[in-house]
């Protein structure tokens, strides 16, 4: 498989994984503190709220797409390249997407954390 196809595969993993993460984070932000809901309304209410939340369900769909793109890309290239490349780029893409779509305040501390972790993940895979 050509280099372009492999990087397109990695890009597909990063985009779908980030979309899934952001949608799920948005779902949980809107549902609110699960600890508080469990105390007042019980664990079944948590399951109900999560499972009927449209953001959560679309997040699951994108997570499934990410898993599928990972499987396909892994059939073209070694896990030692695809794994760390997609995991570390997903960390950085998530920081960008959380800032844009979740309006999180990504300060220097969080950017540094994302970059350090992304670099560390690449090294860990060697």
């Amino acid at each position: 498989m050509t280099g372009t196809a492999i990087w397109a595969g990695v890009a597909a993993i990063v985009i779908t994984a980030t979309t899934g993460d952001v949608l799920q984070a948005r779902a949980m932000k809107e549902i609110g503190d699960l600890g508080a809901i469990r105390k007042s309304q019980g664990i079944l209410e948590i399951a109900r709220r999560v499972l009927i939340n449209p953001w959560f369900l679309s997040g699951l769909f994108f997570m499934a797409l990410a898993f599928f793109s990972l499987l396909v890309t892994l059939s073209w290239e070694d896990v030692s390249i695809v794994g760390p490349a997609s995991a570390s780029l997903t960390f950085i893409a998530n920081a960008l997407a959380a800032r844009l779509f979740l309006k999180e305040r990504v300060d220097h501390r969080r950017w540094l954390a994302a970059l350090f972790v992304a670099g560390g993940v690449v090294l860990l895979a060697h």
Partner: protein
Amino acid sequence: MTFRKYLILAAVAVFASCGDVCLARGMRDFGAVTAANWHQLFGIVLNPWVLTGIGLLLLFFGSYLTALSWADLTFVLPATALSYVLMALLAGLLLHENVTFSRWLGIALVTVGVGSVASGPAVTPTTLPKWEPRDPETRISKSAGSDA
């Protein structure tokens, strides 16, 4: 951040790494997936290692969603990245994979990243609306009200 919340973040990292290591151990029993044997993959879910791995990953997903319910995504992801460190150490101990110098360097980088974010605030003020599940009765009364 309460002690209980730190426990949940730790649970995310521990369940994720133990779950992945169990899956990796189970897939060793299967061997390499090829075009000839891929359909036998469905049988691997009965492997005790794979079953344990799936159970642990479900626990991971539950604790991950719990963390996201009170913390930012840009906090939860780096704060639980210790799972990568745990995975490298577990793979060295249990699966006898080699922990090389560059892996130790990676462990150091991830730890610095985790430390820097975990000492900061878990959540930033958000402008997103609170989402409440609509129950049929209020929806009917609301639409009836708007018609009037």
